[in-house]
């Protein structure tokens, strides 16, 4: 079993904050068009050595195109991509120090697991005496020692996934691209494999770029997550940064569950604003680093778990609103309450079920109070 990722990871490993650090990959104003369709829209992004960089977005957002441009299967329409300081526009895929793990795994069905892993090494005229040791090392890394002589169709889905990983790592690439690597696995196996991937990434010290549409997966494995939409990167940050400090309603909504309250801002002190959000409603107090002018339209994004729910009116809450329980989603460990506010807006509040179900005192149609702190939400322009 893999070691869990240290909690201090975000603090220890942050080459993107170091201005002296040279990026391994540099997208410079890259645009990719397919006919009239713009798949990548003048995108610039640096990715650093040893990063585990996740490209996250809905299908058709351009994340796979970005990966295929790195692998050399697509050319850029304009702009340039640099790998270790060199423009790779004219380098064909077979000459790049980049390997890719395909979504379908693309294992060669006519070759054994051993030969699949050795395939890239043989193309490079890897010395014969060292080849066996290298393949054995890869088999060991991915715990496939027993399956070297099997054909790909004679092993299970999870094992195939590991063969694909071993094959793409065998040549020791500077950069490994993973296209939805866990998409074909069931949920439990996927979670195990996520940790395995992180472990292998740490062991080999390879830079990983992963494409996924699964936000949980991106949050688990990545050192930084790039949220994409319509050929642009909307935000790049650590998983914590993306979740706690989204820069737009799109990102807040894409990652996890969120309540969006629309209103107008009114300055209320240093970095503090009142949000007018409904007729006859007390304004909401919220802190924000982003400056807002008086009367500017704004969106307050609050995660459901940051809102607490009580039957009695809370004393001294920074923000408290009364509402009515409309729906309860019981998830076992958590319960999500859908609370309808007087204006008709529905707010989701989530609590951990520390008590047994029978002792729960809030039920449907109950009048309840919801409350949250001024620092709980993020105030966004759009």
């Amino acid at each position, binding site marked *: 079993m893999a070691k869990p990722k240290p909690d201090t990871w975000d603090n220890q490993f942050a080459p993107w904050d170091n201005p002296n650090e040279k990026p391994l990959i540099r997208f410079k104003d890259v645009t990719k068009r397919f006919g009239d369709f713009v798949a990548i829209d003048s995108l610039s992004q640096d990715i650093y050595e040893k990063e585990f960089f996740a490209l996250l977005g809905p299908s058709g957002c351009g994340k796979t195109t970005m990966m295929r441009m790195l692998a050399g299967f697509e050319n850029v329409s304009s702009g340039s991509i640099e790998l270790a300081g060199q423009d790779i526009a004219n380098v064909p*895929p077979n000459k790049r120090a980049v390997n890719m793990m*395909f979504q379908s795994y693309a294992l060669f069905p006519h070759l054994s697991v051993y030969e699949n892993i050795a395939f890239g090494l043989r193309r490079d005229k890897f010395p014969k005496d060292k080849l066996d040791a290298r393949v054995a090392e890869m088999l060991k890394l991915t715990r496939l020692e027993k399956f070297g002589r099997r054909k790909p169709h004679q092993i299970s889905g999870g094992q195939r996934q590991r063969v694909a990983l071993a094959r793409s790592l065998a040549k020791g690439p500077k950069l490994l691209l993973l296209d939805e690597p866990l998409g074909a696995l069931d949920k439990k196996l996927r979670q195990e494999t996520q940790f395995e991937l992180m472990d292998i990434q740490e062991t080999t010290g390879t830079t990983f770029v992963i494409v996924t549409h699964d936000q949980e997966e991106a949050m688990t494995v990545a050192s930084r997550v790039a949220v994409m939409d319509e050929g642009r990167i909307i935000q790049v940050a650590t998983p914590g940064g993306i979740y706690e400090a989204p820069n737009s309603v799109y990102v807040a909504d894409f990652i996890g569950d969120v309540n969006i309250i629309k209103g107008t801002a009114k300055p209320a002190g240093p970095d503090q604003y009142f949000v007018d959000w409904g007729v006859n409603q007390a304004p909401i107090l919220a802190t924000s680093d982003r400056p807002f002018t008086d009367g500017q339209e704004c969106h307050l994004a609050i995660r459901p778990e940051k809102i607490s729910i009580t039957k009695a009116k809370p004393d001294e809450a920074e923000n408290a609103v009364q509402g009515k329980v409309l729906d309860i989603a019981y998830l076992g460990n958590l319960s999500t309450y859908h609370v309808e506010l007087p204006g008709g807006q529905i707010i989701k509040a989530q609590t951990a079920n520390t008590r047994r179900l029978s002792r729960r005192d809030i039920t449907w149609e109950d009048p309840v109070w919801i409350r949250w702190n001024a620092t709980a939400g993020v105030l966004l322009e759009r």
Partner: protein
Amino acid sequence: MKRLSTFNVTSLTFGFAFLYLPMLLLVIYSFNSSRLVTVWAGFSTQWYGELLRDEAFLSAAWITIKVAVMSSTLATILGTMAAYVLVNSGKFFGRTLFSGMIYAPLVMPEVITGLSLLLLFIGIGLDRGILTIVLAHTTFAMCFVSVVVSSRLVSFDRSLEEAALDLGCTRFDAFRLVTLPIIAPAVISGWLLAFTLSLDDLVIASFVSGPSSTTLPIKIWSSVRLGVTPEINALSTLMIGIVTIGVITASLISKRSAVRAQKDAQAAERSA
């Protein structure tokens, strides 16, 4: 198993009788000891023996096999190339036209194909002989090969080739080391199909063959005009046998690999 109704049994019997009765008669009469083709006089394999001593038939058979091997090999190479390009090159101007033109000779009357090839060979001053038959057979057999191979290539996972490129192959190496081994069953059955087509062909061969290059179907055709002999029956039986084996092998090769892959996949899922 569902039981067949009387109607189904009857139509099945008549249908297959219609298809195979003539051939069955021919096979039976090839073992007739009488020289008269239509009078049964007892079982004998003497006509097979006489066939093997007949120099003219043997040389025709040898020419036919040479032509079939050469033309089906050429047709397989060209047909596979055509299929590969048409399936993989995506959309380009005139793609539909090109793929249509590959398949057009399938429905072209053989007389026209034969005649036009004859005109071409006369026009460029190529003496009619084994070479011209090989070229003519290659022309029409490559369409069949291309149909068989492209139907396999359509379901071929393109990312396999991309993976080969990604791991350091040149385009040619990727084709040689990955694509070709995987589509090999289709290529082999294409070759066998081309081989049997060339073995059978009378019309085109009779247009483009020369005096020294009589193929077996031409030889049979010209002998029959002087009257059907039991020898011809024996020869035809042998040809039916060879063609049947060829066709059955071709379909078995593609079927068996599919069945084996399925079995292995099931075994893998169980052991996982």
